[in-house]
């Protein structure tokens, strides 16, 4: 791959991503927000974050990605639900996933 085409790709990706972010930010300042919409947005943000976490745990791109990471992240989810400190959650996730892979479970 040559440098010009890489830079062109990066420039388009960066500009497009910034435009998405800034349009969200900008749209908000031109609309008045009903209190109900605040509630919908808060719930929507939580739903998005959980969906990103779940799909990135179970999938690699669009293909299912074995059990090791799903189990590791599930262990972390239980720990987080039990109010474990975030460092414990992270170490459990990586540790359990790495351990399972060491045992040959992908």
């Amino acid at each position, binding site marked *: 791959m040559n440098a010009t085409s890489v830079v062109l790709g990066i420039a388009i990706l960066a500009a497009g991503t910034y435009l*998405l972010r800034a349009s969200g930010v900008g749209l908000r300042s031109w609309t008045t927000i009903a209190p109900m919409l605040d509630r919908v947005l*808060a719930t929507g943000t*939580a739903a998005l974050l959980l969906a990103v976490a779940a799909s990135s745990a179970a999938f690699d791109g669009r293909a299912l990605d074995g059990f090791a990471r799903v189990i590791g992240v599930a262990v972390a989810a239980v720990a987080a639900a039990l109010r474990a400190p*975030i460092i414990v959650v992270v170490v459990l996730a990586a540790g359990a996933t790495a351990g399972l892979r060491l045992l040959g479970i992908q």
Partner: protein
Amino acid sequence: MLLLYRTLGGRSLRQVSLVCLSVAVMGVSYGISAHAAGIPLWANLLLATTVLAGASEFLFIASMHEGVLPVVAALAGILVNARNLIYGFAVSPSIGPGWRRWVGAHLVNDESVALSSAEASEQRRRLLYWVTGIGVLVAWPFGAVLGGTLGALIADPSAFGFDAVLPAVLLAVVMPALRDNWTRGIALLGALLACGVTPWVPVGVAPILSLVALPLVLLQRKDST
């Protein structure tokens, strides 16, 4: 650091540091993949700083490696980042007035949105948004370059379970919001939907489809939680 400790408080500072550390770890694993895909270190750094959205960068380097046209690879990456539009809309009031909005918009991502929306007061939201956003802006490219450099040494980053770190962090930061029964129900339904459609839709679209469950929130009466 002391000033940050005073304004943020120990607990929040620990949380932000850990989130940034996790982002850096994920960045290392991305950097290793970028190295394996033949992306030079300078392009890796440029991508990490100017795009600042992990999943789309993974997809971009993978597509470039497979010989996809740069324009097409970039458009696919933009699609992956579509949720940032909704995030931007949600956190807009927490970013600040005037020119700061347009600088702060670049810092819209999973982590800055999660940590700031967990706060109750507008002042704390704004503080957490900027501190986390700048933290990620430093941690992600740092991790990416470190990974790109280590790439020659570590063959298989998945052996360390690095790829489980970011989903786990997102779960940990979204957990307080999920203590609310309605939010939890809708978010779980949405996440199930997203996982169900992931194999059938372009990468990055599935999480957005989780919002299909969102109108259920309108059924909730104001007095019940």
